[in-house]
C-alpha cells in the first residue's frame, strides 16, 4: 500500500493538537485545587503555586493580548532587539569572516583570540553590557550580537575557505577582477552559509534579547517574566514562557520562508517536483 504507516497531513495536525490538549488537560487535572487529593504536597493549593494553573495562564495571555492589550509594547521591544541583534551580528560576522578568510596573515594572528572569544560563555557579558549600555535596549542588542556574531562568523569563514577552487579558477579565467571575485564568488558562497545558519542565529538573537531583559530592564517580555517572578506569580511566568515559545516558532517560520525564497539555487536532498 502506498500510504501505509504514515498519517496524512491533516491527520498529523489533529494528532499534534490533540497531544497539546492532552498535556494541558494533564496539567489542569494535576494542579486544580481540590480535583485530585494531594499526594506530593502538604495541601491542595501547593501544586498550583509551584506549577501554575493552565486556565489562569490562558486568562493571563487573553488579558495581555485582548482585554488589557498591554503586551504589544513589550513584544515589539523584544522583537526590535532580536532583529537589531541579528542584523548587526550577521553583518559584522559576514565582514569579519570574509576578511579573515581572505587574509591568511590576519587569520593566523587572530586565531587564538577568536577561539578564546568563542569558547567564553558570553551570557556572562550581560552585566558588563548593562553597565556599558545602560538598562535600555542597547545592552540586550549587544548581548544578542555577541551570540549571533560567532555563528555567522564561523560559517562565513568556513564557507569562503571551501569555495570550490574550480569555480574560483573558472571565474578568474572568465576575467573577474579581485573585486568581482569578492562580489560574485566569495560573497554569494558566504551568504549561502549565513543562510544555512539562519535558524540558529535568529534563535540566538532572540535568546540574547530575552536573557538580557531578564537580567535587568524596564520593558520587554523578559521583563514581564522577571516582574512576575518577583511576586511569585507563577501563572504569569508560565504565560510569558508560552508567549515567548509561540513567538520563537513564528520567527522560525518567517526565517524558513525567507530562506526558501533566497536559496532557490541550493540543491536539496532528493528534490523532485510534486505533482
Amino acid at each position, binding site marked *: 500500500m502506498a500510504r501505509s504507516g504514515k498519517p496524512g497531513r491533516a491527520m498529523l495536525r489533529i494528532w499534534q493538537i490533540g497531544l497539546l490538549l492532552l498535556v494541558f488537560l494533564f496539567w489542569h487535572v494535576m494542579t486544580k485545587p481540590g480535583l485530585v487529593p494531594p499526594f506530593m504536597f502538604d495541601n491542595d493549593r501547593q501544586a498550583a503555586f509551584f506549577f501554575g494553573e493552565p486556565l489562569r495562564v490562558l486568562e493571563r495571555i487573553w488579558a495581555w493580548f485582548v482585554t488589557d492589550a498591554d503586551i504589544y509594547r513589550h513584544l515589539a521591544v523584544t522583537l526590535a532587539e532580536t532583529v537589531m541583534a541579528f542584523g548587526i551580528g550577521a553583518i559584522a560576522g559576514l565582514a569579519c569572516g570574509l576578511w579573515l578568510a581572505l587574509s591568511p596573515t590576519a587569520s593566523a594572528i587572530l586565531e587564538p583570540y577568536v577561539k578564546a572569544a568563542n569558547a567564553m560563555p558570553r551570557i556572562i557579558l550581560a552585566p558588563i553590557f548593562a553597565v556599558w549600555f545602560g538598562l535600555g535596549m542597547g545592552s540586550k542588542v549587544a548581548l544578542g550580537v555577541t551570540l549571533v556574531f560567532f555563528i555567522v562568523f564561523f560559517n562565513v569563514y568556513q564557507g569562503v575557505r571551501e569555495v*570550490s577552487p*574550480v*569555480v574560483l*579558477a*573558472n*571565474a*578568474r*579565467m*572568465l*576575467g*573577474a*577582477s579581485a573585486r*568581482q571575485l569578492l562580489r*560574485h*564568488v566569495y560573497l*554569494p*558562497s558566504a551568504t*549561502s552559509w549565513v543562510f544555512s545558519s539562519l535558524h540558529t542565529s535568529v534563535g540566538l538573537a532572540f535568546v540574547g534579547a530575552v536573557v538580557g531583559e531578564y537580567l535587568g530592564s524596564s520593558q520587554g517580555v523578559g521583563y514581564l517574566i522577571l516582574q512576575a517572578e518577583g511576586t511569585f506569580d507563577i501563572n504569569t511566568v508560565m504565560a510569558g514562557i508560552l508567549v515567548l515559545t509561540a513567538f520563537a516558532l513564528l520567527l522560525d517560520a518567517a526565517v524558513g520562508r525567507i530562506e526558501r525564497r533566497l536559496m*532557490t*539555487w*541550493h*540543491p536539496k536532498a532528493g528534490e523532485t517536483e510534486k505533482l
Partner: protein
Amino acid sequence: MAEGEAPAIRLRDVACTFVSPDAPEQRYTAVADVGLTVGAGEFVSVVGPTGCGKSTLLNVAAGLLEPSRGDVEIFGERLAGINRRAGYMFQADSLMPWRTAQANVLAGLQFRGVPEAEARERADAWLRRVGLGGFGDRYPHQMSGGMRKRTSLAQTLVLDPDIILMDEPFSALDIQTRQLMENELLELWQSKRKAVLFITHDLDEAIAMSDRVVVLSAGPASHPIGEFTIDIPRPRDVAEVKSTPRFLELHAAIWRVLRDEVLEGYRQQLQARA
C-alpha cells in the same frame, strides 16, 4: 591565418615543480622540458597516462599556474598573470551554483562590463546554440551533467576567446552525449577556427578531433615523446571517422608510443600504493 604569424601558444622548456607546504624537502616535478606549440586555428590534443601532468600544462597555458622554469608565449607575447585571450573548460563542474544557466553564461561578459541587456541577449543566443534555449532559468543542480557541460561550453565561448583550453571536458559524460558534444564542438570550431589545446586520456577522442596529437611520457618530469599529425580530412564525424582505415593506422602508431608509458604510469601507481 597568415604564414609566419606567432603561434597561439608556445611553451618553451617549461618545468613545474611542486613543493609540499608541510614538508618543504618533498618535491614533485610534474612536467619538465616541455616544448609545445599550438598554431592559431589549430586543434591540438595532448594524451598521456593518468597523472602525467596534462592538467598542469593546461594551467600553465591558462596563466593559473606559473611554471618553475621556462616561459609561455601567447601570440608572441610573454604571458604574465591570467591568459586574457584564452577560455578554459574545466574537467570538474565549474559553474557558479548560485547563478542560473543564463547568469552563468553571461558572467564573463558582466565581468568585462558589457551592458546588461546586450550580455543577456548574447548569453541567450549561445544557450540556444548549445541546445539549451529554454533552460536559461535553471540552476546548475537542476540540470543533468551533459546540460551543465553545454552551459560551460557556452560560458567559455560567449567571450569569443582566441584560444580554447579544454581539460577532459567530456570525460564525465556517457558515450552518446559525449559524441554529440564532440561533434558540436567540432562544428563550432570549424566555423570559428580558434586555437584549441585539448587534454584527454581517450586516444580515440584525440585522433577524431585534432589536427595534431602530442603524447606525454609518464610522470614524474613528463615531457612530450611523440607528435602525430592527423591527416584525416575534415569535416569529420567523430563516430564515423573511427572506422576509417587511416584512423586505425594512426591509432596503432600512437598506441605503440603510448602503451609503454601507460604501463609505466600504472606500475608507478601500484608502487606508490604499496
